[in-house]
């Protein structure tokens, strides 16, 4: 009867068991080394079936890998399918051999054929991976020696497996072995006389390669097979805020969430292609930063440091090898383009935030202009002026209700530091004020008492300042009893809705948020949908929309501003090469508006070049920082004749004829 004969032609089975034990021991040690890093302070939000489902969809179907690169998706699917199929086969064989014998007869033949297919699929995937990296030379892929080793190793395992099979069939082949069609086909390579000897050599080669892979797995990039699904699960929980009540010796350099990001990374390089800083030729590239951090943490937080000999070696390596360059952390705009494209949802921005926090507490390497801006924020509640009481100067003569002074209003317009103090960004505030008044929406502001929401402090890692500002503003809003907030800036919006909620979770505050914060584009879109904002005349212009990162990516809002633009008759909206959730950052986020860095690139200029490629005469955006960055790049680049930059409110005002004058475009 067709069945598998275990250890056919293999005499020293004990040696195989010994090697297996050895391989598993090394695998276990590697796993322990990695998991030990995750363990301190490990917390999670409990089990969630929905999160598990999404994790499985990403891990098994590779949803995020297919996105934007079907060729990569196919490559990964083939390797994963082949690998899992053969892994399952090995498990079944083990069950058959050690527990219950069931693999015989027809079932055995069918499964044999299936495993042949799995092996072929695996090899196809590996060959495809090698072609992509070395023949097609996909730019984002690296070509270091180690990059060839893993696929070559896997390929050698698969090939040697087929050859073992072929030699066995050549030596003893029954007719039913035809079901192992590839082995059957290859069996002609072996002369029946020498097949038995060749089989033994090949069998041990195959065994050694396979066991070697098991031992190497936790130390190799293949570890992502275990770490990535875990990370995909955890990334669905928001990254918790730092607990500032901890004593200094309890504060950890990195949390398990950071280690998961480090271990899940496969160095695919999508982040490098998406990162506006890397694209502009700045020193930061997310992949390199993650690689350096991984090396650093694997040396520093290695379980083996408990053994003196290893501790000395690891310490020595830590000082002699280049690890994290903290200076790079300041280049990040926290635009989250890297997180958006990452197949394993690694989060370089959380890693960078953590590094920034440490730099801020240490103090010496904070870029001087940033330090100055942070000091202004702490003393004057804005990063722009070393002067109090200027927040309401833009609204002089508008006579807006002041909620801080007790004027009643259902809607609080939180103007924000930049929008109230920067002369260009004030256009946004005047525009929104005019539009809301036009639509009959009653609203007020906090006047000159408006503090900073804490966005900048949060993004640059000044955790203590963020907490102070959050407490101040939360207290003020609670005193007034504010329930509805509209913000100028997607940054303030994100901070008020997301980061304030994180603080409540951390502090154990239950119940819903006391207020709802919305970005103004969401309020305008609602007014359009309610029929309260209509455009009788319209505005003839070809326009493109620059998605603010904190609106499109962090807050997942791409529809609202487009809904408003679509309502304007005559306005033709064209999209840039990178738009929506893949929009390209203007370079103003993450605190970069407030400091200068050596070798900094022209991030906003790159964006304007994309805009001009669409043939649009107008770039519309919905963020004060984007507005300033793009306007500056437009002037510095000499593009004044080629296109205009406007805030969405300004465009709405023009379309409504609230500003008077002819169409300027």
């Amino acid at each position, binding site marked *: 009867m067709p069945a598998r004969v275990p250890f056919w032609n293999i005499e020293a089975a004990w040696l195989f068991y010994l090697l297996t034990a050895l391989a598993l021991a090394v695998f276990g040690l590697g796993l322990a080394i990695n998991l030990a890093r995750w363990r301190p302070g490990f917390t999670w939000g409990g089990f969630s079936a929905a999160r598990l489902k999404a994790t499985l969809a990403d891990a098994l179907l590779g949803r995020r890998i297919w996105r934007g690169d079907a060729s990569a998706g196919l490559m990964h699917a083939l390797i994963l399918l082949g690998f899992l199929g053969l892994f399952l086969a090995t498990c079944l064989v083990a069950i058959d051999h050690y527990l219950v014998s069931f693999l015989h007869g027809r079932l055995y033949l069918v499964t044999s054929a299936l495993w042949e297919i799995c092996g072929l699929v695996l090899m196809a995937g590996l060959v495809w991976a090698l072609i992509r990296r070395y023949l097609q030379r996909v730019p984002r892929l690296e070509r270091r020696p180690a990059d060839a080793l893993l696929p070559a190793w896997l390929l050698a395992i698969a090939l040697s497996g087929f050859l073992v099979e072929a030699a066995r069939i050549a030596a003893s082949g029954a007719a039913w072995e035809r079901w192992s069609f590839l082995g059957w086909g290859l069996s002609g390579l072996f002369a029946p006389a020498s097949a038995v000897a060749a089989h033994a050599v090949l069998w041990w080669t195959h065994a050694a390669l396979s066991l070697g892979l098991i031992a190497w797995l936790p130390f190799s990039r293949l570890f992502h097979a275990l770490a990535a699904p875990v990370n995909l699960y955890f990334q669905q929980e928001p990254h918790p805020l730092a607990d500032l009540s901890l004593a200094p010796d309890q504060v950890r350099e990195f949390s398990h969430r950071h280690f998961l990001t480090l271990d899940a990374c496969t160095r695919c390089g999508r982040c490098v292609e998406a990162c506006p800083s890397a694209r502009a030729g700045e020193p930061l590239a997310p992949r390199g930063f993650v690689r350096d951090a991984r090396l650093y943490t694997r040396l520093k937080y290695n379980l083996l440091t408990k053994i003196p000999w290893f501790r000395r070696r690891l310490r020595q390596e830590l000082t002699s090898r280049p690890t994290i360059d903290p200076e790079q952390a300041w280049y990040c705009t926290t635009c989250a383009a890297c997180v958006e494209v990452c197949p394993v949802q690694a989060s370089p921005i959380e890693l960078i935030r953590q590094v920034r926090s440490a730099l*801020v507490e240490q103090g010496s390497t904070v870029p001087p202009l940033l330090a100055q801006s942070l000091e202004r924020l702490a003393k004057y509640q804005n990063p722009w002026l070393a002067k109090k009481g200027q927040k309401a100067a833009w609204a002089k003569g508008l006579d807006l209700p002041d909620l801080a002074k007790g004027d009643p209003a259902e809607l609080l317009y939180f103007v924000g530091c930049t929008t109230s103090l920067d002369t260009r960004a004030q256009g946004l505030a005047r525009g929104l004020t005019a539009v809301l008044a036009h639509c009959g929406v009653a609203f007020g502001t906090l006047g000159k008492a408006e503090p900073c929401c804490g966005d900048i402090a949060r993004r640059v890692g000044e955790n203590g300042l963020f907490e102070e500002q959050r407490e101040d503003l939360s207290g003020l809003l609670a005193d007034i009893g504010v329930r509805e907030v509209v913000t100028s800036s997607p940054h303030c919006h994100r901070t008020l809705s997301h980061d304030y909620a994180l603080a409540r979770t951390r502090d154990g505050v239950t119940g819903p948020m006391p207020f709802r914060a919305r970005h103004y584009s969401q309020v305008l879109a609602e007014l359009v949908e309610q029929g309260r904002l209509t455009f009788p005349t319209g505005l003839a212009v070809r326009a493109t929309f620059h998605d603010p990162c904190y609106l499109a990516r962090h807050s997942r809002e791409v529809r609202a501003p487009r809904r408003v633009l679509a309502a304007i008759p005559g306005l033709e909206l064209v999209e840039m090469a990178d738009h929506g959730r893949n929009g390209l950052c203007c370079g103003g986020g993450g605190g970069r508006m407030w400091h200068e860095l050596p070798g900094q690139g022209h991030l906003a200029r790159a964006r304007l070049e994309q805009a001009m490629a669409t043939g649009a005469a107008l770039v519309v955006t919905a963020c004060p920082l984007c507005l300033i960055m793009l306007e500056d790049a437009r002037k510095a680049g000499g593009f004044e004749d080629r296109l205009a930059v406007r805030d969405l409110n300004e465009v709405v005002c023009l379309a409504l004829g609230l500003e008077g004058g002819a169409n300027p475009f």
Partner: protein
Amino acid sequence: MEILVLAKQVPETAEADLEITRDGADLERDDLVYTINEWDNYAVEEAVRLKEAHGGAVTVLTLGDEESEDVLRRGLAMGCDQAIHLNDETFLGSDPATVVQAMVKALGGRRFDLILCGVQSADQGQGQTGVLLAQALDLPYASLAVGLKLVEGGLVVTRELEANTLEEVALPLPALVTVQSGINQPRYVSIMGIRKVRGMAIEAHDADGLDLAGQVGPAASCLAARRLALPETGAGAEILSGGLDAVCARAAGIIREKGGLK
């Protein structure tokens, strides 16, 4: 190495809209924010860097009211080890000699290897406290330091002179050095950094304790502010246009009309 660094709290006025009080004797201070004197900030940073490089301890000292404790907390957060607060409202408005007298009494014979302070303060700008203290303690001193190096047997100080010239002087220790801005890049002091030193003890002295009651403040000062005034704003500017010769002729004409040329 034991270092003493002096730090003063001053109002930030660089961008503020200054107003004079009705009696003309002082600034309207309600809208002003108080901070460490810029020069002293460089001095504190330099002291902490010397400690980090060579070991020892840094003591930071201020003279002022209750509020000026912030300057000490900031110094402790930057890495100073101890703080001395000459804490008395009546100290405000004292002349530099009185300030130095109070400091000497509070120090009570304690010896330091090096005393650092800013060249001058941003509010009064008299530039006397440092050098007077050196006199009172009979220490060699160097002013306007833009570089400071510990060497065998003393200190080499780079001084900033007029017209981009630098002078290098050697001093034996103990010594006093007044620090010019730009000598280093002072570190950022985080909110958490300040919070962490909230509980540290601060040595405090008031005028009574120093036997100076009635001998400090404006009344005992050798200086008195008669009247403060903001510079008058001109009526406007006239922009001359035309060729170079024409502009020069017109400019000379205006100066002559106003009596500037005879």
